[in-house]
């Protein structure tokens, strides 16, 4: 197992922890945090590939990670604002109850 593969395995596991959290928890904030974990796992991959990949001089992975973090920040802000808005409306933070979009 090369170092790159080790990095990737770790990030995969992190991703899956996030996924399990997002799937199993009903508290909206926790679901969001799970998703954040999944994003972090993806970022780890960028860095890992940059570091151990074929052409580290291109710096693409780093740039991608930076943008990804920026977007993740935006996502977290909006997501949490949504949680607050939904809470104000429904007096609940349980995700199952926010199902008004049901067809």
């Amino acid at each position, binding site marked *: 197992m090369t170092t790159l593969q080790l990095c990737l395995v770790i990030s995969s596991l992190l991703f899956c922890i996030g996924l399990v959290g997002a799937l199993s928890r009903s508290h909206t904030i926790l679901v969001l945090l799970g998703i954040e974990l999944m994003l972090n796992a993806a970022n780890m991959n960028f860095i890992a590939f940059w570091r151990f990949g074929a052409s580290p001089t291109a*710096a693409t992975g*780093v740039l991608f990670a930076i943008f990804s973090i920026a977007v993740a*920040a935006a996502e*977290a802000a909006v997501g949490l604002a949504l949680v607050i808005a939904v809470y104000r409306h429904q007096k609940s*933070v349980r995700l199952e109850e926010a199902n008004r979009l049901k067809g």
Partner: protein
Amino acid sequence: MNLILVLIGGLMLTAAAVAMSLRNIIHSALLLIGSWLGVSFFYLWAGAEFVAFAQVLVYVGAVSMVVLFAVLLTRRDRQDVVVAPETRTRAISALLVGGSVAGLLVSAVLGTPLATGPAETPTLTVKDLGTLLAGPQAAGLLIAGVILTVALLGAVVLAATDSGKEDAS
């Protein structure tokens, strides 16, 4: 070398796993900060210092604060931060799904011959990054800026209390 990585990874994964299974949200959030710190250690270890700092600033500093605020804003009393236990079926199905994804990913990672580059750490100074962001990647930077601005405004609009409605409720 790989030992450090395994340590960092173990710390990070454990923190994340525990955070996802705790019933008290405040505790979860704090543990997650630990996990994010682990991620930033990983970046440092990999030589991407700037990303590591960004990770600390954004996640450990900002997102965690926002999460805590959100938690505090959405509870009605002290006990509210402790959420009810999840239903068994949901937990099992989540574990099944997560486990299968994990198996798939790990087997894919291990089963794929990946090309690797030079072993020495690439040098990427902050100045290099700055040049890149101001030069060839300027469009990306601008777009990210716009997205952040819009997200900020959107978040404010969403979370802002409408005075009339507040009175009514």
